[in-house]
């Protein structure tokens, strides 16, 4: 029976087609959610078994297919840990094969912190089914009961002491009927040997020796390099182009116009002019020599200053109700001493260290693509549309991703490479520069938040009103959409944990005048910043300790079902009975981090501690930051502590590493000047003016504790980010009494 998921498991599939290997996959049928509905097609008869999940070869080597993209979260290792553990495979006999894009795997969209959540159970069952078949094959050969045979570390042992290696049993196993899922005995938690350990990840050695293959490292086919000049304004078009000087650059081979997109941006290339050259330097020089006149279109008026004013105006007026309980409006109307705060955060861009890059080769009947993509099935669709071919004919090879953070779920770069290859008949590598990445992204939304609260005599929250407004992701998919998708509200807004008799949540509208995308933790970032900052402000007003007050306002242990308060809530597509919004776990994270950080201890002048807690991607997380603010306003982050309850976790070291990294990623929101626009153009261009955290900005110690339990697995990649900025700003307030409501911090501490 399914321990974690309310999903329909049906059967396992087995084949001897692949070189006599035992091949096992899982198959989902029926009314599984769209993202889970993948059906395993008959196994490939080619020598490679890469399109199946696990194959035990006659030589005993286990090939495990990883269908999720690797971008530093160590999913390739985690997938292997799960399968190998349940099949009792020896770790040194494991080979991981990176899957191409193919709908038969089900969802491959590696974002939303859900690779383990979607796959832990089925991968365990697949591994366990191989172990079952090994046991039964040995039992049959010996003529004994399967229960008298145990499979441990690539070896089946009978109670008499005789043994067979897995390799010796492969051909016998081919005649064993694979078990129904219900006939499987999964290991107990105590029996796990790989799952829930911090074993080293499989690609480490390749990475430290420079052998890991990222998108730009693909050398076959030997590609020409294309660098593209794109319209500086979203929706803009080329009015005229003079490429005379470009074509005169030595090494430049061709200049190709890329058509402007139509309708909503989706993942379409922005259009522009591609310079194709023998090498990267020539392509860069060639692009510099282009003379292009642009027609900016309707977004040419986008200005971040006036947009900020517009957002703040929106959240200071009544808007559409999202969730309501009691009568917050009248309580607040009668309170002359209510606490009111506006919060603002600019656009940000993901800025992964590896700028977008893809190689493509167009043939008459197919396109081969090599890309650092988070979602190869989106590449299939986007490339297919771009070149006018069915998506089934687009072969997408997934390289290692040099970071992604949501940017590489949008494969405009693969479509560019395919298009230029189609036009030139040559293999093409489209290389984005850092300037391209910063100026032509899918931006984290600019946002404004307005919160009011009425405190009662004990300092508790009697009434609470929160309005949010931001440029919605919805606009990327529906032309001109001003209102957010409901999932954009679900993330840290609709699921507000404050317990109060009167609560009202409203959302405003805002046009998107840039391409809006998701960035690590998405709208949780600005929602958690506002809510967790405001709670600390209310604590101060009530004269109470931040941590005690936070626990007080979220209230006692309970399951919070916001849908009973006139709200729609999708719970990250997680089943509410498996993934309830459990206030006890949020409290647990807060208490744990308070303990870890020595909350309440005496601090020298200029030092302060700040706390923030949040549930995102179904994980409960709490962070404490210690800072020092000098008299002249210099900020130094001394140390951070994070407690994370992600339910069942697979690789404990990866969870710690992601939580440390996600915390430091959160520093970006506090220190970066963000992405700003004027005349529709992004005003930043590289790391000198789009500031990201460096070692000198980061604490050298981010202490992480995993709250271990047997709950269903939740997300790990994203949750550490949203809590960081509010914990940091709460610490700053504790250190020097300055409240930061507008990010970045900038010069606010120096005023």
């Amino acid at each position, binding site marked *: 029976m399914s321990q974690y998921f309310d999903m329909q498991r049906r059967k396992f599939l087995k084949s001897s087609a692949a070189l006599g290997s035992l091949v096992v996959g899982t198959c989902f049928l029926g009314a599984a959610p769209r993202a889970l509905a993948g059906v395993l097609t008959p196994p490939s008869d080619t020598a490679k078994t890469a399109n199946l999940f696990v194959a035990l070869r006659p030589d005993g080597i286990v090939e495990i297919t990883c269908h999720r993209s*690797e*971008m*530093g*979260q160590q999913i390739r290792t985690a997938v292997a840990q799960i399968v190998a553990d349940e099949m009792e495979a020896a770790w040194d006999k494991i080979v991981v094969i990176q899957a191409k894009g193919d709908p038969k795997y089900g969802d491959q969209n590696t974002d939303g912190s859900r690779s383990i959540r979607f796959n832990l159970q089925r991968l365990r069952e697949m591994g366990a089914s191989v172990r079952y078949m090994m046991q039964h094959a040995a039992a049959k050969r010996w003529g004994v009961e399967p229960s008298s045979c145990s499979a441990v570390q690539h070896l089946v042992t009978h109670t008499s002491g005789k043994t067979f290696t897995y390799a010796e049993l492969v051909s016998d196993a081919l005649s064993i009927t694979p078990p129904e899922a219900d006939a499987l005995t999964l290991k107990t938690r105590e029996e796990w040997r790989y799952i829930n350990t*911090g074993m*080293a*990840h499989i*690609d*480490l*050695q*390749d*990475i*430290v*020796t*420079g*052998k890991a*293959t*990222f998108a*730009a*490292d693909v*050398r076959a086919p030997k590609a020409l390099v294309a660098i593209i000049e794109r319209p500086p304004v979203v929706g803009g078009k080329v009015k005229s182009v003079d490429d005379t000087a470009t074509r005169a650059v*030595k*090494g430049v081979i061709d200049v190709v116009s890329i058509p402007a997109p139509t309708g909503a941006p989706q993942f379409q290339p922005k259009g522009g002019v591609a310079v194709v050259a023998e*090498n*990267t*330097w020539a392509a*860069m*020089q060639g692009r510099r020599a282009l003379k292009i006149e642009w027609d900016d279109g309707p977004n040419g008026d986008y200005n971040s200053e006036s947009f900020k004013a517009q957002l703040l105006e929106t959240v200071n007026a009544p808007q559409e109700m999202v969730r309501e309980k009691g009568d917050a409006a009248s309580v607040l109307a009668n309170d002359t001493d209510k606490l009111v705060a506006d919060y603002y955060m600019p656009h940000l861009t993901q*800025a*992964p*260290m*590896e700028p977008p890059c893809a190689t493509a080769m167009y043939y008459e009947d197919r396109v081969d693509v090599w890309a650092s993509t988070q979602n190869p099935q989106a590449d299939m669709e986007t490339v297919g549309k771009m070149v006018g071919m069915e998506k089934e004919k687009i072969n997408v090879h997934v390289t*290692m*991703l*040099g*970071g*992604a*953070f949501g940017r590489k779920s949008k494969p405009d770069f693969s479509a560019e490479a395919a298009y230029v290859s189609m036009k030139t008949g040559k293999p093409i590598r489209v*290389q984005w*520069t*850092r*300037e391209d990445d910063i100026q032509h992204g899918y931006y984290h939304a600019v946002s404004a938040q307005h919160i009011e609260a009425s405190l009662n005599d004990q300092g508790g929250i009697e009434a609470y009103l929160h309005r949010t407004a931001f440029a919605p992701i919805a606009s990327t998919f529906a032309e001109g959409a001003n209102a957010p998708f409901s999932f954009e509200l679900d993330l840290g807004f609709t699921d507000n944990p404050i317990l109060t008799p009167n609560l009202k949540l409203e959302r405003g509208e805002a046009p998107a005048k840039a391409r809006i995308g998701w960035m690590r933790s998405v709208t949780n970032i600005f929602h958690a910043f506002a809510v967790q900052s405001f709670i600390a402000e209310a604590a101060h007003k009530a004269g109470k300790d931040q941590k005690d007050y936070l626990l007080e306002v979220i209230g006692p242990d309970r399951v919070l079902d916001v849908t009973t308060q006139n709200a729609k809530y999708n719970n990250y597509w997680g089943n509410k009975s498996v993934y309830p919004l459990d206030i006890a776990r949020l409290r647990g994270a807060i208490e744990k981090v308070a303990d870890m950080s020595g909350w309440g201890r005496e601090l020298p002048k200029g030092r302060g501690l700040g706390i923030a807690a949040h549930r995102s991607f179904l994980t409960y997380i709490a962070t404490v930051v210690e800072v020092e603010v000098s008299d002249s306003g210099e900020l130094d982050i001394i140390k951070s502590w994070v407690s994370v309850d992600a339910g069942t976790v697979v690789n404990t*070291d990866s969870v710690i*590493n992601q939580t*440390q*990294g*996600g915390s*430091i*990623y959160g520093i970006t929101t506090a220190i970066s000047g963000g992405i700003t626009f004027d005349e529709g153009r992004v005003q930043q261009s*590289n*790391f*000198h003016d789009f500031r990201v*955290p*460096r*070692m*000198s900005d*980061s*604490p*050298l110690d*981010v202490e992480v504790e995993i709250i271990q339990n047997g709950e269903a697995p939740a997300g790990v990649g994203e949750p550490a980010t949203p809590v960081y900025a509010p914990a940091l700003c709460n610490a700053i307030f504790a250190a020097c009494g300055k409240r930061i409501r507008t990010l970045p911090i900038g010069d606010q501490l120096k005023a």
Partner: protein
Amino acid sequence: MLTLTVNGKNYEFSGDPTTPVLWFLRDELDLTGPKFGCGMAQCGACTVHIDGVAQRSCVLPVSAAVGRKITTIEGLSEDGDHPVQKAWLDNKVPQCGFCQCGQIMQAASLLASNPTPTDEEIVATMSGNICRCGTYPRIHKAIKAASKSIAGVEYYTPEKEGENA
């Protein structure tokens, strides 16, 4: 025609002498360890050693590297067993890994000139190398560990570690 020395071997280059070393390494020699991250010496992903000292190959023209020894991550050690690489493995530093070759080259250069850097010296030297995954605490820890092994055993010398022409 320029002659460039990379990882102990000589190569001829007849292209544009303003070509940055990074693109010579990647496009001409297929040495893909040095990465392209910014193109303006802001991020350090392209870091190589020039005569044993860390430099940003994305802004250094090949003409300025003639007669000097270029070392990439591929030439830092025979089998990935440079003390810094070993410390990176022991401390499980990398996440995505894209910046790590540059980080390792920067750290190796630091320890070659200063085998026992202080915490502050490590921060000052490494803050030119960006890691968006945020592995800074582990990088710092790994450098301290490598420092211990280097200082305790022998000083790192480029000649011994594959930087000889």
